[in-house]
């Protein structure tokens, strides 16, 4: 029958006509409008369902008033339109009128929007695919929770029950992404702070898009559902058995890879072949059909830093790509070692021939003969058959030829001797590795310095491109580290998905009172300033201190790479609940949505705040009462910028590694400006002074040791009770002494009365308050008589939002 297009039309004089309504335009927004009946069922609708650019601007600006945008431009110039290039140095304005701050803010915003688009497009792809397989009516199943989509509910007001209910959410995101992208055009926006507001919205949409992605796959693909005992997974380059045909999957979108795994299972190949992954596809491969806690046969090789390293090892017999964080030189590199590259997502086609419509055996023949270096395969049924067949066909050929880019002992010696120590490699190295020094030592036959570089090296091969002697430096490092690589075998817990409602009920009070000292969320990529062990060290430090450590993505992998003296990883030593002293891995990149959602859930479930379309109030609650801080120590991607910025809009601060100054914009408060450290008490609208924490929403740290101190300090919240504040101060002061050698110089600002002081140091600190700050102490009663600038009031209701105050 013919299809009616969108619009208004009248139907008259028709008889016996059947009308099927496929989709009602604007239905989602209509459904989100508050009605009395709906409110009785789902609670009232908040003031900002389906926010667009202007909707939450007041909240952004409230945050920016304390957390000021700090711009660190990457370039003096703007090269964006044909008026330019314009020199903006010294905050000049370009030909279009935009100044340096505006340009830096636009660039930062564009990173956030790109990250948001990436996750959301991933979500759209997965959702469409899964609805095609299972239908729109499939009920969402995230485990034992009633609040199943906290980000979606908070932002849009919708409470999806089925996969089909996620479609209007995606439509909303897509509309806003288009609106936001339009503002990047020349002549669209003038004020830096308004680009910053747009970045915040892009960040929020990013979390909603991630949530859609993970809800779809957790529901339909048999992933663990809020399971603290999800199975342990092997992780590391040394886990792959190279004697078998090896499939390596790289990217973030597991949809196509599930067909490969199904084919392997259907054909009894799971013990005859190896399948390993890099980046988040790897995580989702190990979650696929593992809600029964059965140990996964899929393995995690590692992060983007390992992509070239595993390829050059010659171990993969075929590489299958999907999307995101895939190196752009894999086809070229794969060709050298006869490793076919199969692109399975139309976002990444790599110039390869599209063989989607061809016969699988014919494609295998062309790949095995080398007629084509790889191909595009967008039909997942065929992909599932193609990839294992290619691996099986290529394995004996490649083994016979001994294909590897790793030099032999003799070649190694020759290559090392070619180095003239010109220093070009060191200058090009993004990690500032002392490659020439290691090469000089290697000339004497000692490869230990080269071996040491392996863990610090991000595998980018910038060194090789500037080497005047054309030495394959990366391969030399890998050769020197062969033993270490073979021993790279750790364990990580498969992604558990959301934190459940019962876990929130059990932990909410401890978090808000501060008796659980905080949540440290270690997320993001692997662009670490000093090797992979940093994230392990940080996680261990906070687990030993009874913080909740939440992890995801590539950081979760690297944390699992290290073991204690008894040979145990942190995932074996500490349980996986949302509870103090636990480490919970939510899953892949898109599972980051569950970490931010945990804060929303505390507000909604523990504090009974209305979640629906109520972003500012919930974010205000998190900012003032939940001691959660994110750490994206190796953030390199635009997605990481979006995740962090979304957290900021939700009132969750984040610390990034030193590379992340290159994102161009931080949000840092002036701790010396007392006018910025005030809130309203919503009981009566009066002003209350607060301590300077969190002192940033997003910033960078130089070393992991400094990051530890910053994380502990910025878990302090105005709502801490005496015991909570005392516990938090204990950890902050101890960490400062441990890693900086001194007590912090502003610890006294956080003291409201003597009960706030750490027990073990109470007397010593009171003496310091008396002698250095002039506070009055009653030594008989061991009480502070006068001095504190902030008061302790257990009943206070701190808020940034005047409208929440009773008098308002």
């Amino acid at each position, binding site marked *: 029958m013919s299809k009616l297009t969108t619009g208004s039309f009248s139907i008259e004089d028709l008889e016996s006509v059947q009308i099927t309504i496929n989709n009602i335009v604007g239905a989602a927004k209509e459904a989100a409008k508050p009605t009395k009946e709906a409110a009785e069922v789902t609670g009232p609708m908040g003031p900002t369902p389906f926010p667009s650019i202007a909707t939450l601007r007041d909240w952004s600006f409230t945050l920016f008033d304390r957390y*000021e945008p*700090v*711009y*660190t*431009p*990457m*370039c*003096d*110039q703007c090269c964006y339109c044909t008026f330019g290039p314009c*020199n*903006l*140095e*010294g*905050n000049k304005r370009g030909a279009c009128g935009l100044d*340096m*701050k505006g340009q830096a803010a636009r660039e930062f915003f564009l990173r956030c929007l790109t990250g948001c688009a990436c996750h959301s497009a991933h979500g759209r792809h997965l959702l469409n695919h899964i609805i095609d397989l299972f239908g729109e009516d499939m009920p969402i199943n995230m485990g034992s929770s009633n609040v199943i989509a906290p980000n979606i509910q908070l932002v849009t007001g919708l409470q999806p029950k089925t996969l089909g209910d996620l479609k209007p959410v995606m439509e909303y995101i897509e509309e806003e992404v288009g609106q936001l992208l339009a503002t990047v055009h020349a002549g669209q926006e003038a004020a830096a702070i308004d680009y910053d507001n747009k970045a915040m919205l892009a960040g929020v949409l990013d979390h909603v898009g991630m949530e859609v992605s993970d809800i779809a796959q957790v529901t339909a693909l048999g992933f663990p559902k809020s399971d603290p005992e999800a199975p342990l997974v092997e992780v590391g380059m040394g886990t792959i058995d190279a004697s078998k045909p090896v499939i390596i999957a790289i990217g973030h979108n597991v949809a196509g890879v599930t067909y490969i795994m199904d084919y392997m299972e259907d054909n009894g190949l799971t013990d005859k072949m190896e399948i390993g992954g890099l980046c988040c596809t790897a995580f989702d491969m190990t979650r696929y059909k593992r809600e029964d806690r059965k140990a996964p046969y899929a393995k995690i090789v590692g992060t983007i830093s390992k992509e070239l390293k595993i390829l050059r090892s010659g171990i993969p017999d075929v590489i299958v790509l999907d999307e995101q964080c895939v190196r752009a030189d894999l086809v070229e590199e794969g060709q050298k070692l006869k490793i076919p590259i199969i692109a399975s997502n139309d976002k990444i086609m790599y110039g390869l021939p599209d063989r989607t419509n061809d016969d699988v055996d014919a494609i295998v023949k062309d790949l095995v003969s080398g007629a084509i270096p790889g191909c595009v395969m967008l039909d997942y049924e065929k992909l599932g058959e193609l990839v294992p067949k290619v691996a099986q066909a290529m394995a004996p050929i490649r083994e016979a030829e001994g294909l590897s880019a790793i030099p032999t002992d003799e070649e190694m010696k020759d290559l090392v001797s070619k180095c003239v120590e010109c*220093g070009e490699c060191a*200058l*090009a190295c*993004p990690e*500032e590795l002392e490659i020439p020094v290691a090469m000089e030592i290697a000339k004497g036959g000692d490869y230990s310095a080269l071996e040491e570089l392996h863990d610090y090296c991000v595998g980018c091969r910038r060194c090789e491109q500037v080497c005047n002697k054309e030495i394959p430096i990366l391969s030399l490092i890998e050769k020197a580290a062969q033993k270490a690589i073979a021993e790279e075998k750790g364990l990580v817990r498969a992604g558990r998905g959301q934190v459940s409602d019962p876990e929130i009920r059990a932990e909410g009070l401890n978090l808000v009172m501060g008796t659980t000292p905080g949540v440290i969320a270690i997320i993001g990529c692997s662009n670490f*300033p000093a090797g992979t062990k940093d994230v392990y060290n940080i996680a261990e430090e906070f687990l030993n201190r009874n913080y909740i450590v939440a992890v995801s993505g590539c950081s979760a992998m690297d944390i699992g790479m290290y073991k204690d003296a008894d040979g145990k990883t942190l995932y074996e030593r500490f349980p996986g609940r949302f509870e103090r002293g636990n480490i919970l891995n939510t899953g892949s990149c898109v599972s980051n949505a569950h970490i931010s959602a945990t804060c929303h859930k505390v507000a909604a479930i523990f504090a009974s705040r209305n979640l629906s379309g109520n972003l500012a109030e919930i974010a205000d609650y998190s900012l003032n009462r939940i001691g959660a801080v994110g750490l994206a120590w190796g953030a390199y991607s635009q997605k990481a910028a979006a995740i962090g910025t979304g957290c900021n809009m939700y009132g969750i601060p984040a610390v990034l590694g*030193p*590379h992340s*100054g*290159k994102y161009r914009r*931080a949000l*840092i408060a*002036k701790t*010396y*400006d007392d006018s910025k450290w005030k809130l309203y008490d919503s009981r009566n609208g009066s002003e209350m002074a607060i301590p300077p924490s969190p*002192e*940033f929403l997003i*910033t*960078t*740290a*130089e*070393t992991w*040791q*400094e990051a530890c101190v*910053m994380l502990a300090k910025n878990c302090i919240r105005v709502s801490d009770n005496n015991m909570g504040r005392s516990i938090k101060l204990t950890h902050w002061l101890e960490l400062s002494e441990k*890693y*900086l*050698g*001194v007590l*912090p*110089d502003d610890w006294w600002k956080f003291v409201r009365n003597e009960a706030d002081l750490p027990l073990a140091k109470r007397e010593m600190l009171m003496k310091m308050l008396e002698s250095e700050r002039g506070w009055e102490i009653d030594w008989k009663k061991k009480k502070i008589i006068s001095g504190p600038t902030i008061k302790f009031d257990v009943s206070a209701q701190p808020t940034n939002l005047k409208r929440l105050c009773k008098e308002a």
Partner: protein
Amino acid sequence: MVDTTKNTKLFTTYGVKTSKTVTPEVASKLISKAKRPLFVVGTGVLNPELLDRAVKIAKAKDIQIAATGSSMPGFVDKGVKANYINLHKLGFYLTDPNWPGLDGNGNYDTIILLGHKKYYINQVLSATKNFSDVKAISIDKNYIQNATMSFGNLSRADHIAALDEVIDLL
């Protein structure tokens, strides 16, 4: 005298403005003439060769030390007064004329930089370069484009020798 002005090859490009290279002699004069200098020292200073020289430079002109990252224990061990501050935060505060400084006496006119990762300090200095009048003098091993004045790229040995010359001239 070590020629600290030769190699200004950039590890990446930030656009049109590049710092002027300085000799140890000029660097020492700039440090001496600064009205309100701050010695901003990064975690790289935990290398004992650098730490000794950083202490000598600070003591020679009684310059306040801002110890960034986790460099602080180096100064604590030496019994030298320093204040910890996060580098990114410091970069921001330096752009605020109302910042009371680390000692409560106001903002600084000159910062001297040592012991930093080049990509990190360069990024932080893009804020001071574009949004403040503070002078940034880098006496680090690498050429720092966003500083006002900087040594060029130096070998480790030349860098140490250049620092010794600065110390002698202070």
